[in-house]
Structure formats: C-alpha cells, structure tokens
C-alpha cells in the first residue's frame, strides 16, 4: 500500500500554479514525476502523490524543481483563470481511472513524437555537416587544381617562347651563315686552314665553331664542312670480338627473385627422378640414402681407386651401375679398376660398354672416349693381342692427335708387332 503524501501546499496566479510537495526524506528524480495535461503524479515508493488537476495545464513548459527535501512545481495554465482548488472535487473512481489512463496514453504519445522530432533534427544536422565538409574539400581540391593549372600555363608559355627563340635563332644563324658564305667564297683556302687550326684545339669550342658554320646552310656549304668533319673523326675501329660467358641458368625465361624457390624445387625433383632408374626395391631398402645415388657412389669409387682400394672401388661402381646403367663414366672407371686388378677381359668388356654409351662422338665426350680406347688398348696388349691393342691406340690418337704419351705407346706396340712378326 502506498503512502499518500497529502501535506502539499499550493498557491496560484492568473497564469500559473505553484505547488510545493515535501518529500519526507525520500529522494526524487525526474523519473519519479509523471505529468500530463490534467494529471500529476509523483511516485517515490512507498510514497505516492497524485492530483487530477482542476483545469488543463501546459505540461511541456511547466517545470519541477527538486531540492531541499521537496519538489516545487511551476505549472502554467492553459487558460488563464483562477482555480477554485488544485484538484477536481467530484472525481469518482471510474472517472479517475479513465483520466489516469488517458494521461498515460497522452504522455506516451508525446514521448513518441519527441523522439521522432529528435531523430529528424539529428539527420538534418548530419546532412548539414556532411555538406559543409564536402564544400571544404571541394574548395581545397580546386585550389590545388588551380595552382597546377597555373604552373601548366606558365610552362606552356615558356615552351612557346623557347620554340620561337629556336626559330629565330635558326633564321639568324642562316642569315649569318649566308653572309659568311659570301665572304668565304674569296679567301676560300685561307679560311679552310683557319678553321682546321681552330678545330684542332680539343673541346667544346671546336664543336661550336663547327656548328656555327654548318647550321642552316644550303647544300653547297655542307660538302665543305663535311670534309672538315671527316678529317677530324677517327677511323672506324678495328673489328674485334669479345667472347662472353653467362651466369648459367637452366630455364629459358628471365630470372626473377620471387620465382627462384619454385625453380629450385622443380630442379630438385628432376634430379630425384633421374637418380633411380633401375632399382630392385627389396635390396635397396637396406641402403642408406646416399648410397642410392649413383653420383655419390661414383665419387666414392673414385676415392677408393685413388687410395688403392681397387676391389672396394669395383663394388661401388657395381652398385652404381645397378642403380643407373646408362652412365658411361661408371663403366669407364670400373675398366680402370679391372686393369689394375689384372681382370683384363672384364676391363675390355667395360671399356666397350663405355664406348657404346659414349655415342654420338662429340667434342664434349672426347676425353672420355680417349680414355676408353687407351684402357681397352692396354688390356689387349696385356693379353698379347697386340693388333687389336694397336687399333685402339690409333683410334685414341685419331681423337686426340696431340697426346705424346699415346703416340709413344702406339710406337712401342708397333715395334713389338714388327718384332714378333720378324721373329716368327
């Protein structure tokens, strides 16, 4: 049950009513006051004060001042008149209820309208602000454009001026040159010598005099100056060629830093694919990664050969051949090992295989072919098949005629053959 506040005091003038409501200790805010045209309510739980006013008031302009433990209302009357009392006397319950409801509705309506109005003003303000900034920016842009335009015009004028100067300069110089021509036609030879002397002094001075005499001249003058010029210019250079080496690049496209990573990956994949051509998967599982690479194995074999471990080298080469039987160098090196091990037949076989793989015979594999022939030749000779050996040596000589060692050895074999032929 609310506690009714009844100790209010009021006084009035023709246009306004002044109502003072003590609060009895409660704190009031604007939210506790509910006011419409004819109804006033202050509700601060548990306190309650309500009044159905005698006549309608202008609630938008009326004020309520909260402070000092009471609320002081200043209510402006709609119609200036003197009220008999603050509230309507004969208010029965239903009427009161009705009035209350109306009041609430009225206030709600008013609130709605107010928010609408606020929205509209806000939008308008925004629009205005936007337009104002746009104008400012427009002005700024225009200023810059104008400055640029001015510059452009200034430069255009300068250009035109310069162009005209050029034309005048040309005309002037052609007139001058014509005058000179008239003068020149007599002491022709002297002038020529003079000019020659002048132009012998190196530097811009000479080029200017050259220019002056040739600018704007007609045909007759040009031959004269042409001769002069040709006398001054050095002869064409002696033709020569410079050989150039390029930084190696596999791809025909241009080099781009951003593509380098992709390209490296591609090349790596290609190398991987080349590594294992013939492979027996079951045996290879035991091998280490490096040992599956024929190139690595070849290197290993070479090292072992250099140290004298010929059997080990042969093993390495064997494994390499199993992995990739198309590399001629493997057979070539294995032949060398066999020679050292005196497995002459095997040496011959391997050199032959190497030679087979080294077709077509091109300058690039000359070295390899020479070696193959020499090794086979040596093997033949050690088997005392001197004629075959000589054939190989001569083939080697054919590829590399400048090799003295091969020549000497071939001579020796020839001698041997002749010796045996003589003795038999």
């Amino acid at each position, binding site marked *: 049950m609310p506690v009714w506040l009844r100790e209010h005091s009021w006084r009035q003038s023709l246009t306004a009513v002044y109502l003072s409501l003590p609060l009895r200790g409660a704190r009031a805010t604007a939210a506790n006051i509910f006011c419409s045209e004819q109804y006033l309510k202050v509700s601060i739980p548990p306190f309650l004060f309500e009044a159905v006013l005698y006549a309608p008031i202008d609630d938008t302009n009326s004020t309520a001042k909260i402070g000092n433990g009471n609320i002081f209302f200043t209510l402006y009357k709609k119609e200036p008149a003197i009220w008999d009392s603050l509230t309507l006397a004969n208010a029965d319950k239903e009427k009161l209820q009705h009035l209350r409801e109306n009041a609430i509705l009225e206030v709600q309506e008013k609130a709605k309208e107010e928010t609408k109005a606020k929205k509209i003003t806000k939008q308008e303000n925004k629009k205005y602000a936007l337009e104002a900034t746009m104008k400012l920016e427009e002005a700024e842009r225009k200023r810059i454009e104008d*400055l640029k335009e001015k510059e452009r015009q200034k*430069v*255009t004028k300068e*250009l035109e001026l*310069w162009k005209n100067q050029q034309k005048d300069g040309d005309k002037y110089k052609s007139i001058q040159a014509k005058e000179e021509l008239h003068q020149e036609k007599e002491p022709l030879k002297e002038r020529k010598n003079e000019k020659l002397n002048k132009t012998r002094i*190196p530097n811009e001075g000479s080029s200017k005099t050259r220019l002056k005499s040739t600018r704007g001249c007609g045909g007759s003058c040009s031959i004269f100056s042409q001769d002069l010029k040709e006398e001054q210019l*050095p002869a*064409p250079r*002696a033709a020569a060629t410079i050989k150039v080496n390029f930084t190696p*690049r596999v791809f025909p496209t241009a080099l781009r830093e951003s593509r380098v990573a992709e390209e490296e990956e591609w090349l790596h994949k290609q190398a991987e694919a080349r590594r294992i051509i013939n492979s027996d998967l079951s045996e290879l599982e035991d091998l280490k990664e490096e040992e599956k690479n024929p190139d690595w194995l070849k290197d290993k074999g070479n090292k072992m050969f250099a140290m004298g471990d010929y059997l080990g080298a042969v093993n390495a080469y064997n494994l390499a051949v199993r992995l990739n039987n198309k590399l001629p160098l493997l057979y070539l090196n294995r032949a060398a090992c066999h020679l050292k091990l005196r497995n002459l037949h095997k040496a011959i076989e391997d050199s032959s295989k190497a030679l087979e793989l080294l077709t077509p015979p091109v300058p690039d594999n000359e070295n390899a072919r020479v070696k193959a022939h020499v090794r086979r030749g040596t093997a033949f000779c050690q088997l005392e098949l001197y004629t075959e050996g000589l054939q190989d040596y001569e083939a080697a000589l054919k590829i590399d005629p400048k090799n003295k060692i091969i020549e000497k050895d071939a001579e020796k074999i020839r001698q041997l053959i002749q010796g045996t032929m003589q003795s038999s």
Partner: protein
Amino acid sequence: MSAVLGLERPQVVSHVQQALSYTVFDCKWVPRSARLMCLGSAARGTGIIQLYELHGARLEVLREIEKPKPIKCGTFGATSLQQRYLATGDFDGNLNIWNLEAPEIPVYSVKGHKEIINSIDGVGGLGIGEGAPEIVTGSRDGTVKVWDPRQKDTPVANMEPVQGESKRDCWTVAFGNAYNQEERVVCAGYDNGDIKLFDLKTMSLRWETNIKNGVCSVEFDRKDINMNKLVATSLEGKFHVFDMRTQHQTKGFASVSEKAQKSTIWQVRHLPQNRDIFMTSGGSGSLHLWKYEYPAQRSKKDSEGSEMGVAGSLSLLQNVTLSTQPISSLDWSPDKKGLCVCGAFDQTVRVLIVTKLNKI
C-alpha cells in the same frame, strides 16, 4: 597523385596526351626542336614511325612513315645535329638509319642480328663528346654489336657468347665513358640478371655482375664523361645505382639499391641538365623521380688497402601514376629542362612537364 601543400617538391604535370592507333615501343625527342618521334608496331604487323610537333597544348602529326617490319627502338645519339638521322632496330634484327626527309630508302642498313633488336644506343653525335659516332644494338640472340655508320655490313665490335654456351637475351645496352676519342664502354643487361661492362678500347670485359633479376634498362648518367654513375633497373621493382668511379678488383663497383614498386621497372632516364636526377617508369603505369646524393667520401680503403667505392643514397622526389598499363619508354628533352615524353602500352603518348627542377 600526392596532394602536396606548398608544392615545394617537383610536380609532374601532364601537358598533352595523344592516343595512337598502334602500339608504341619507343619515343624520342628530335634534338634541337619541339618535335618528337614515336616508333612502334601497327596491328597489321608493320612498323610505324610518326613525327609529331608540339603546338601549345596539342601534338600535331607532321609525318607518318610505314615500314615492313615492326620497330622496337630508336636513337638519335650517333648523328650530327645538322643531319638528325634516326637509327632504328626492328623486330627482324635489322639496323637501319633513316633520313626523315627522305625515308623511303635508309641511309644505312644491315641485318645485324638473327632475332629482334631489343635495345639501341648511339654515341658521338649531336655535338656531344668526341670520337667516332657509333651505334650499339643488343638482341635476343644474345649478342651485342657495335656499328660504325661508315663501315658497311660488319660490326666494329661483337660481344657474343662462347661456342657451345647457351645464349641469354640481351635486353638493354648503353654507351658510357666516352670522354675522349679512344675511350668508350658498352654496358649490357641480360634477362638472367647479368650486367656486363665491355671496354671498347681494350676490347675486353671490364666488369660483370648479376643482380638476381632480369635487367630491363641500364643507363650511365652521362655518356660523354669519365663514367660516374650507372643505373640498372630490373624486374620485381628493383633498381641499382652503381658508383663507377672506383673499381675494386674483386668487389667491383659499389652500389645502392632501392625497391620502388611491385612491378617491373621498364626504363630509367637521367635528366640531361642534371645528372643526379633520374626518372624510372614502371609496369604499373607510374613514374618515380629520384635524386641521388653522394656520400661524404666517394671511396675508402678496405682491409688490404685497395680502394673501393662508397655508394650514396637515394631520395624519392615525386611519384605519379599516369596509366594502368606499363610505361615502356621515356625520354627527356635535351633542350628544355623538365620536358619529357613517355609512351605506354595503353597506346598513348604523353608529354609531361616536371616543374621546380631548378630548385633541387
């Protein structure tokens, strides 16, 4: 475009734009005039040379010449000021020198290369420098050849790959160091990132390096002085500036490099009136104007006591985007400071004015 308050920096102002009906590969100013040449390839597969004159705010066509093969590059560098013959390289490997007054028959013609001539440069003409006028061409067949217009059919120098070596495309060539009658160098850039410096006096390779990206354009800051700086631009938006005054035996020349943009830098051109300012043009249709500042000491001694160069620093003066397509060619006017022409693959040639260069 960068909006600059106070406009203290040089501005790149577009003066004239001209739409063309062919693809323009090269554009050059005709020396001592307000005329310019555009070289390119028409859609029907023929070569076009157009001569324009600048009249106020527009370009007027003075002459249009059609040739059987598309033309890739051209230069006025090796002719005299009076003759002003244009040397061109075309898609078929032919080097021709034309007299523009009588363009039906070339003054000099040779089938110099087996494949397209990518780049051409001339030295010794226009009253600049001394020595014989020469033209150098670089081609996709991997060779760089130097020609003297007085000698028919054979080049006076030929830089070709060693027998059996696979060739790389030569994308750009430039002359330099032509400060007296004997000295000359040719710098060539290749698609595998190689830059090679050939000395024509000793007919040998003087220096080489690899900048890890295909080299699109090389230029010395001046052709006719003791070589001072070399700018090399490449793919991937990078360019390098080499200080060419001090060569170290192993380290070569000192350099500073800059990554300007994500796209290829097609061209670099130094301002003829100030050799420390240059413009680079990019594949994104932009132009960047740079200034090089020298270091306090241009050379210093290394640990063994031999001289090595010190590279300076670069600052970007201005940057502007003109087109959506690459700007493939650029040329400063030798007569008017700040006037330049650029041709782009959107079939437009633009005349630009760069202002406030006097204040740099």
